[in-house]
C-alpha cells in the first residue's frame, strides 16, 4: 500500500521563489492586484451568502427582507406576520403564519389549530420544521392515523401565528382582528409572562392604517447578508464569561440611568394582576369567535433541577433589566399558578408544560426559554392529547 504518493512533488525546488527574503517593493500594479483580491473576497462572501440562502431556504437572491424583524408587519390590524416573507430558516406563508402554505378557508374534513405566542412558539433555535407547532401537526397526524377511529376528521392543520416579542394584548388584538378569519377550531396560547416585567406593562400594538407604510424599501435588496451571519458567528466565538461580562455591563449601564427603586426586587403584584386580566381577556375573545381556547403554562430552564447557570440568568436579565434574575424566575413561577387558575375558572383545558420539561431526559432548552428540537418534541407530545380533546375527537382517540 502506497503512502506519500505525491508528497515528493512538493520538495523545495518546486517552490523556489516562494520565499520572501528579498521582496521587491510593491509596485502600483501589485497594489491594485491586492485590492482586486480584497474585492473578490468581499463579493464572493456576499454572493455565497445569497446563493446558500436560496439553496437551503429558497430565499430569493435579492429580497428587501434583511432581518428577523422584517418577518412581521404593522398594518391596520396591528402587528402580525408578513405574508410570504423569508429570512434565513424562517419562512412565512401567504397567511403570514410560519410554515407551509395554507388557504384562508379551512380545508374540508380538517381541524384547524392556530398557535399564538411569542418567540418560543414561533421557533428560534429549532431546526426548520422542528418548532413545536410543526411537530404538533405531525404528532396529531400520527394520532389520527394510528389511534383515532371514526372521527370523521381527515387532518389536523396547525397554523403558527406566533411572532417573536408578541405580547398577550397584541396577540389578543391579532386574534380579534385577523385570526378570526382563519376559522380556527382551537386557538392554543403559549404565553410569555415575563414580558410583564418590561419597563412598562405590555399594551396592544397600535395599528397603522397608512396603506404603504409597511412596504420595504427596494434598495434594501443590496443590504449585505454577511453582516447578520458574522454577528451570529461572533456571538458563538466569544467565550461565555466575556458575553456575561458584556451583558452585565450593559444591564448595569441601563439601570444606572433609572431612578432608585425602579428595579423590581420582588414579584410586582400589579404586573401579575395585569397578566391575569389579559389572559382572561384572551380566553373571552377566543370564545367569542366560537373557537376553543387552550393554554399552556410557560416553562424556563431554571425550573430544571440543579443550580441555575449564571450565564443564562444574566442573558435573561438583559431582556428584562427592570427585574433581577431571581425575580424573573419567581414571576414566571407565580404566573404559572395564575395560568392554571385562569384555566380552571374558565373551564378550559390547560397543559402544564413546566413539570414535563423540567424532568426531561434530553436537553429541552437552547437558552433560558427557547426550545431545542427535542424540547419542542416534548411540548408537541404533551399538547397533542389536549388538542384532540379540545377539538372534540379525544374520546374516539381513547383520551378521557
Amino acid at each position, binding site marked *: 500500500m502506497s*503512502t506519500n504518493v505525491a508528497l515528493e512533488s512538493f520538495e523545495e525546488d518546486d517552490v523556489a521563489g516562494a520565499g520572501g527574503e528579498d521582496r521587491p517593493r510593491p509596485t502600483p500594479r501589485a497594489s491594485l492586484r491586492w485590492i482586486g483580491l480584497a474585492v473578490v473576497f468581499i463579493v*464572493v462572501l456576499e454572493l455565497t451568502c445569497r446563493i*446558500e440562502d436560496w439553496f437551503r431556504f429558497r430565499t430569493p437572491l435579492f429580497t428587501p427582507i434583511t432581518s428577523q424583524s422584517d418577518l412581521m408587519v404593522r398594518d391596520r390590524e396591528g402587528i402580525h406576520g408578513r405574508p410570504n416573507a423569508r429570512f434565513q430558516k424562517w419562512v412565512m406563508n401567504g397567511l403570514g403564519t410560519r410554515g407551509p402554505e395554507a388557504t384562508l378557508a379551512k380545508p374540508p374534513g380538517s381541524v384547524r389549530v392556530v398557535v399564538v405566542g411569542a418567540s418560543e412558539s414561533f421557533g428560534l433555535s429549532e431546526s426548520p420544521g422542528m418548532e413545536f407547532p410543526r411537530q404538533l401537526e405531525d404528532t396529531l397526524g400520527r394520532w389520527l392515523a394510528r389511534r383515532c377511529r371514526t372521527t370523521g376528521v381527515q387532518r389536523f392543520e396547525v397554523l403558527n401565528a406566533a411572532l417573536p416579542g408578541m405580547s398577550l394584548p397584541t396577540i389578543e388584538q391579532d386574534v380579534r382582528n385577523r385570526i378570526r378569519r382563519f376559522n380556527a377550531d382551537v386557538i392554543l396560547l403559549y404565553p410569555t409572562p415575563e414580558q410583564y416585567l418590561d419597563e412598562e406593562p405590555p399594551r396592544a400594538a397600535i395599528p397603522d392604517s397608512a396603506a404603504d407604510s409597511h412596504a420595504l424599501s427596494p434598495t434594501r435588496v443590496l443590504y449585505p447578508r454577511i453582516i447578520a*451571519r458574522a454577528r451570529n*458567528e461572533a456571538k458563538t466565538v466569544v467565550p461565555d464569561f466575556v458575553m456575561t461580562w458584556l451583558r452585565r455591563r450593559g444591564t448595569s449601564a441601563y439601570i444606572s440611568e433609572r431612578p432608585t427603586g425602579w428595579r423590581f426586587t420582588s414579584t410586582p403584584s400589579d404586573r401579575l394582576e395585569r397578566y391575569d386580566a389579559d389572559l382572561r381577556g384572551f380566553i373571552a375573545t377566543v370564545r367569542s369567535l366560537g373557537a376553543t381556547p387552550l393554554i399552556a403554562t410557560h416553562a424556563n430552564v431554571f425550573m430544571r433541577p440543579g443550580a441555575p447557570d449564571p450565564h443564562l440568568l444574566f442573558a435573561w436579565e438583559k431582556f428584562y433589566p427592570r427585574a433581577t434574575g431571581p425575580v424573573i424566575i419567581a414571576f414566571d413561577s407565580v404566573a404559572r399558578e395564575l395560568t392554571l387558575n385562569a384555566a380552571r375558572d374558565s373551564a378550559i383545558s390547560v397543559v402544564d408544560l413546566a413539570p414535563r420539561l423540567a424532568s426531561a431526559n434530553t436537553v429541552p432548552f437552547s437558552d433560558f426559554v427557547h426550545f431545542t428540537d427535542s424540547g419542542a418534541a416534548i411540548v408537541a407530545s404533551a399538547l397533542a392529547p389536549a388538542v384532540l380533546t379540545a377539538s372534540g375527537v379525544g374520546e374516539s382517540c381513547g383520551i378521557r
Partner: protein
Amino acid sequence: MLFNSFIFLFAFLPVCYLVFWSLRTASSRYVWLTLSGYVFYGYWNPWFCLLMAFSTLVSFLAGLGFLRWTLDERKRRLCLVIPIVIDLTLLGFFKYANFAVDSARHVVHFLGSDITLPHLNIILPVGISFYTFHTITYIVDSYRRVIRPTRNLFEFSAYVSLFSQLVAGPIVRFRQIEADLESLGQRERTRWLHVGVAFFITGLVEKVLVADTLAAFVNPAFAHYQSLSTAGAWLAMLGYTFQLYFDFSGYSSMAVGLGYLFGLRLPQNFNSPYKALDPSDFWKRWHISLSSVLRDYLYIPLGGNRNGEWQLYRNLMITMLLGGLWHGAGWTFVVWGAYHGLLLSLHRKVGASWDRLPAPARQVGMFLLVVIGWVFFRATDFTMATTLLSAMFAPTPGTLGIDVAVFLPVLLVAAWWAMLGPNVFEMAHGLEWRSRVVRTAQFAACLAVIAGSRASPFLYFQF
C-alpha cells in the same frame, strides 16, 4: 476546536502560527507545538489532556528503555508489551467497554437470564483511536529498530499532540516526520507557505462546500429512512458516499496543509479512492495511513500471504474485522469490516476474471460495492441497515426524502470530483495571481457558509 470554526481560523491558528515562527530553536518549537496541541485538544474537555499526557509519557519512557537496553531482548520485549497493553487497555476501556457490556447484555438476555448489566457512563475522548495508534507505531518501530527513539520528551510530545493530525489523522508514523521534526529549527516560514495554504483551503472546500452541503440533504433523508423509496434510498446512500469521502478527505487535506504551514510534511491519506478498480486498489487509496498501519502492524505479523491460501483469507478477515471495529464500537462496523474482508478475499480468489473487465466497468462496479458497504457504516443499527438495503434492492414505494432538483447538481459535481477529477495532491498549487484569486474566492465562500451554519464536526472524530 474544529478546523472549520472561526475560533480556529481567526484566533488559534494565527496565534499558533506567529508564535511558532517567532521562535528560533527546534526545542522551543517542540514546546510550542506541544502546548498548542494540548490547548487544541483541551478545548473539547481539559481532562482528556491527562489521558494523552499519560499515554505520551508511557511511550516515551518505553523509547528510552529501547535506547538503554539495546541487547537485552527480555527487557526490550517488556518495553514493547507494557506500553502497548496500557495503550490498548485505555482505548478498550474508553471506546469498547460499553460495547462489550451491551453485547454481553444481549447474550445474557438471549440465554434467558435476568441479570442486569449497567450501562457505563463513559465519555469517549475524541481522537483516542488516532493518538493511540501514533504511540503504538512508535513503540513497535522502536522495538523493530526501524527508528531510533528520541531522547527529547518535547519532540515526542509534539509528534503525539500535533494538532493538525491529533483528532482525526492521518495516522502519521514517527519515521514519516522524524526528519522534518529533527530539522524544525532550520525551517523557513515561507518555504511551504503557499502549498500549505492551498492544501488547507482545498480541504476546507471539500468539507464545507461539498460534504456539509451533501449532509444537509442526506441527513434529513436518513432521519426518515423507513419511508424512503428505492430511488430515495439510493440517492441518500450516494449522497452519503460522497459526503463521507469529502468530509474525511477534506480534514486530511487541511491536516496536510497545516503540517506544511509548520514545516512538517504529513503523508497523503486519500488518493481518489472512488477511482479504485478493485477492493485491493480501494484500500490502497482510502484512509491510506490506517490501511498501511493495519498492513504493517497486523496483517504482515499475522503471516500475510506467506502461509498458503486459507491463512491469507483468515489474515485478511482478521485485519478487516479489527479495522471495522477500530472505526466504531458497534456490530455494524464489524459487519462493514467483514464485508470488505470478504471483498478482498474474493478478489484474491477470482480476481483474474474481474480484471478482464474494462476499466470503467471495474471502477463503477467497485464503487457500487463500496456504496453497499457504507450502508453498514452509516446505519445506527441492523434494522436501519436491512431496511436501507431492502429499499435499495427490492422495488419499494415511498418518498425520495430529498429535493432532487437541487440535490442532483451537487451530487454530480461531487461525483465528478471524486471519480474523475484530481485530488488535492494532483492539483497544481501555483503562486500565480489566477491561483490566488481562486483560493481567495474559495476561502470567502467557505467563510460565508461557516458563518451561516454552526461549524459541523468531522465524521471521523467519532472514531
